[in-house]
């Protein structure tokens, strides 16, 4: 069975380890959410699985294959990444950007053929970006660009899709739109999806499994209901919150309360 497996993976930069001995498993058709405070190594994990950085120890398997021995293009046919805040040349058209997703499938001397264009068109239809295929990126909104980057990832025909904060910098309507799209793609196409999220409520609503990182290690894992609770958030994030079930689907929702001082100052200012 297709899966993504991390075995005792340690990742870091220049000898300084950010993640130590991470054990993970992700299944097709399920969204695995990675949560934890800033700097806990969420993005590092994504960069490790896409082999931007190589683990200092441990191994990463996709479909039973160690990714360490794969060529870049082989890996890119397996793993697609939707990076956080990617640099996109403004003069590209939407279509050209998504077409770049075909790169790992093309040899040096071959040009994109009808099959590639068809796959790109399909990816753009699924992400509802086909309507502005010929527009330039500078004319498009943040949400439209994010959907294009997802379309580009789909055009890679990957088995694993990694999303690094797919909803950062987006308004609430786009957040819902993007995550609805991701979970629909995940289930329909049997993708393995790993997404880092800083918004605990979005993580709770959209992820099948959650992993909470703390101090370079996995603090807890399981269903949103098992991972997100008052005690864990106090310990991992150092924040006082209240956790109540969502009124519609009973998934855990996190609520903040401003501290007494801040609250008083604010009300004085208002008064």
């Amino acid at each position, binding site marked *: 069975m297709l899966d993504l497996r991390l075995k005792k993976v340690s990742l870091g930069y220049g000898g300084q380890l950010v993640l130590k001995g991470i054990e993970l498993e992700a299944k097709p058709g399920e969204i695995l959410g990675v949560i934890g405070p800033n700097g806990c190594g969420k993005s590092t994990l994504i*960069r490790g699985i896409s082999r931007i950085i190589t683990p200092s120890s441990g191994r990463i398997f996709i479909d039973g294959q160690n990714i360490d021995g794969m060529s*870049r293009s082989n890996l890119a046919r397996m793993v697609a990444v939707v990076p956080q805040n990617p*640099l996109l*040349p403004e003069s590209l058209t939407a279509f050209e950007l998504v077409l770049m997703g075909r790169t790992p499938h093309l040899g040096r001397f071959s040009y994109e053929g009808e099959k590639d264009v068809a796959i790109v068109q399909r990816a753009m239809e699924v992400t509802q970006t086909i309507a502005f295929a010929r527009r330039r990126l500078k004319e498009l909104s943040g949400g439209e660009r994010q959907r294009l980057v997802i379309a580009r990832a789909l055009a890679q025909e990957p088995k694993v899709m990694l999303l690094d904060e797919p909803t950062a910098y987006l308004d609430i309507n786009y957040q819902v739109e993007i995550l609805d799209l991701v979970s629909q793609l995940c289930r329909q196409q049997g993708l393995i999806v790993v997404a880092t999220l800083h918004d605990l409520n979005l993580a709770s609503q959209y992820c099948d499994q959650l992993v909470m990182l703390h101090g370079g290690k996995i603090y807890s894992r399981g269903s949103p209901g098992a991972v997100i609770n008052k005690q864990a958030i106090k310990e991992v994030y150092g924040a006082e919150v209240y956790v109540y079930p969502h009124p519609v689907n009973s998934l855990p929702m996190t609520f903040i309360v401003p501290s007494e001082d801040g609250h008083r100052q604010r009300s004085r200012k208002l008064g």
Partner: protein
Amino acid sequence: MAKENIVRKSAALELSHVSVGKKVLLYHLGWRNRLYAMAGLGLLLVLVIVLTSAIGSTHISLSTVGTMLLARLPFVEIPTAWADSLEIIIFDIRLPRVMLAGLVGAALAVAGATYQGLFRNPLADPYLIGVAQGAALGAVIGFLLPVSWHIASFGLIPLLAFAGALMAVAVVYAVARVGKTLPMTTLILAGVALGAFLASITSYLVITSGEKLHGILTWLLGSFSLARWGEVMVVLPYVLVGTVVIWLYARPLNVMQLDEEQAQQLGINVERVKLILLAAATLITAAAVCFCGTIGFVGIIIPHAVRLIWGPDHRFLLPLSTLAGASFLILADATARTVMAPAEIPIGVITAFLGAPFFLFLLRQKRRAIF
């Protein structure tokens, strides 16, 4: 899982028959224009070669030049109807000069386009990482060595210029490299710093050079006046191989316009591509400057002009820049040797004087962000 893949692919293929046709057509339409442009610029280059071969102190008609050139082609039999002296002027004097100018122009333009793409910086030119300063220092040392002028100008100076260019880039590369990776910003900074250092030595040597000053200045500003077939044959293999290698990496270069991390995630071996492209671009730049000095402006203006007209896709930008660069420098050199004949104007003066207004005109015409 395999079954699922097949299902997914067949769905995509089915779609291609239903609704993709028009989109494919539109996409390839953009290509067709640019293929015409390539053919057009190729034709222009041939015309420019014939035209500039006809220009000079001895008047030779265009049709004579054309026939002479045709007669040299294999399988073409044309009876000779011109004086041998004319043939010597065309084939031994003018044509090698035209060819060298074309090669150098092509090399500088394609190297400039490559550097701009690699560094994602519109101000990058072929001399950004120390090639020019290294070559200049090598050449000036060649001028000052106590050897006969003959040896110096036909063997030693180009050799030292070539070596200086490559050594400068090698030092910049060694300084900028971090482990297995090569951060582009560090590379530029190291290039600028080393370039300034080498230029200071060159300036000192130039000031204290005494009666050799004129020769040195002429080299530094660029000139094709010494071009013979020998020089053409030395430069040709570097430019040919380097340019073809660069053309082959057009698609990776396109993807690297995103950023290095995305390019890697799309399957590009970024570090290897950077290394190959830097090596190819540096080699052809070094070969281009070693005989005729550091000619400015071609490497920056030609790629931008091409980008303005035909867009930023490197699969077209690189070959179109090569062709346009060749034509441009041949024309500039023809101007340099005819305007004040028998005296020659340094070619660098012409490239900037002709190129800059044209470029400003293009910028004004398009009025959109080009990079």
